[in-house]
Structure formats: C-alpha cells, structure tokens
C-alpha cells in the first residue's frame, strides 16, 4: 500500500518540478528535461501499479473520474482552435468535430461524476480562497523583498577604449567599413 501512495506523491512532485523547470528563467535558459519530468509525473500519477492508502486513494479516484472527460475535452478544444478562423479561414471539419468531441466530454463528465452534489462543488470552490490568500501573500512578500534592495549607483561613463569597442561591434554588425 505504501508503494501506491509513494507513487502518487512522486508523480505529483515530478509534475510540479516539470512545470517549474518549464517556466524557469528566460526562454533560452529553461531546463531541457522539463518535458521528461512532466511525462514521468503524469504516468506515475495515472498508471497505478499498486493500490494506495486511503488518503491517496481519494486522489486516485478523483483522477479516474477526471481524466476521461478532461482529456476528451482537451482534444475537443484543440480541434476547435485548429478549425476556428483565428489566423486563417474556418476549417469546418476540425471545427465541427471539435464541438462534437466537446459535447461528448460533457456526456463523459455526467457519466463519471453522476454522484457529485452541488454542495460538494460549493465547498470545494472555497479552496480558491486559500489559493488567493497564498498568491496575494506571495506577491506582497516579493514586493517587500524587492523594495528592500537599495538602488544601484548610476553606471560610470564609458572609457574611450570601451567606446571604440562598441563602435567596432556596431560597425561589424551593420556591415559598415571601419573608415
């Protein structure tokens, strides 16, 4: 049982690592392995080799009810976005099939979540309050930390040697003769 629980938490943290690696730094400095982390995390969460403990079984069951309609809906979204006239003409086969797939995802949602009560959804939506408090407090903390950093002194003027160096680089780049 412990293996099943560990697998779920491993998958969860690998997903978090993958997302964090994928969003780090400027685009050219993002970690190369983020996609592998994401895939491994996703597989670890979805392909259960062992039965988890009671606590993690709740996550596992939620995922079982979530993935069928969500993956179908995702495919539908993708098809509709391909078919929609955002950048090009309307592509009706993709557009219509996308909407059909989206409607099918609703059917799947009702199939897999028929026992879900409105009260449960209302209670679950209060989790947004927690997320909001967390994000706002993080923004406040970052602001406080950033405001504590003293302003840097203005940079000194370039020396003649540096000016010449910059002039040469620009000349080379725009293809102008030194003279």
């Amino acid at each position, binding site marked *: 049982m412990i293996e099943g629980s560990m697998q779920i938490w491993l998958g969860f943290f690998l997903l*978090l690592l993958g997302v964090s690696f994928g969003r780090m730094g400027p685009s050219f*400095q993002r970690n190369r392995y983020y996609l592998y982390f994401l895939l491994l995390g996703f597989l670890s969460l979805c392909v259960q080799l062992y039965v988890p403990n009671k*606590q993690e079984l709740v996550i596992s069951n939620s995922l079982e009810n979530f993935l069928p309609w969500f993956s179908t809906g995702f495919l539908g979204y993708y098809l509709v976005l391909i078919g929609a006239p955002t950048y090009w003409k309307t592509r009706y086969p993709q557009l219509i099939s996308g909407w059909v797939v989206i409607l099918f995802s609703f059917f799947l949602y009702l199939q897999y979540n028929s026992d879900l009560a409105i009260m449960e959804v209302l209670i*679950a*939506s209060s989790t947004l309050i*927690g997320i909001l408090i967390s*994000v706002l407090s993080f923004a406040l903390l970052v602001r406080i*930390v950033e405001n504590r950093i003293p302003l840097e002194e203005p940079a000194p003027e370039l020396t003649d040697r540096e000016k010449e160096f910059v002039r040469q680089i620009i000349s080379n780049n725009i293809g102008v003769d030194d003279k």
Partner: protein
Amino acid sequence: MNDILLELLYSILGGFILSNISIIIFQIVSFHPYSRPTIPVFIQSLSVLFCLAIIIQLNDGITNFSNSMRFGLTEGIVDILTILPIFYVLMLYFLFRASIRSLPEDPLLALLDSE
C-alpha cells in the same frame, strides 16, 4: 464545530497549502543569481507549518505533520479537480466566440487566394 464549516475550513487550508507548496518548489527549482527567495520561502514554510498544526488540532485522526501534509495536499488537489469543470464551461464561451467570428478582410490573404 459544524461539519460543513469544518469542510470549508479544510478546503481553504488545502488550497493554501497546495498553492504555497507549489510556489515554494517553483522558487527553489527555478533559482537564479538575481532571485531572492530566502525570505518568501521561509515565511511561506512557516505559514504552511501553521496550517498543518491547525489541521492536527481540528482533525482527531491526524496526529503528525506528515499525515497533516498528506491530508492538506489531498484536499487541495481533489477540490481543484472538482471545480475545474466550472472553468471548463467558462472557457467554452471564449471558444464559441472564436468559432463564430469572421476574419477581417486582408488584401494579402486575398492575393494568396487568387493564386
């Protein structure tokens, strides 16, 4: 405490813990020379510990921090999965608008058509 109020509180704490843990991991993993994550990570970790202590106090079945962490994260994950359909339906409105809007006349595209 009332059961529904308790559920609400667990849900809020779950969202808070899940979100804070995600942000802490993000700050540590995406560390670079210009980031200053020490103070935010320290205060966020303290606030998560405080929430875990609240869960231990409220829930008789939970006696230690690791179980409290598992409980909080589970609450957060399950609640997010439960409310995602609401956002799914909201997004459909924008998708519908994108599906029916017509492209403005573009002479360059017309030129491509004529070829």
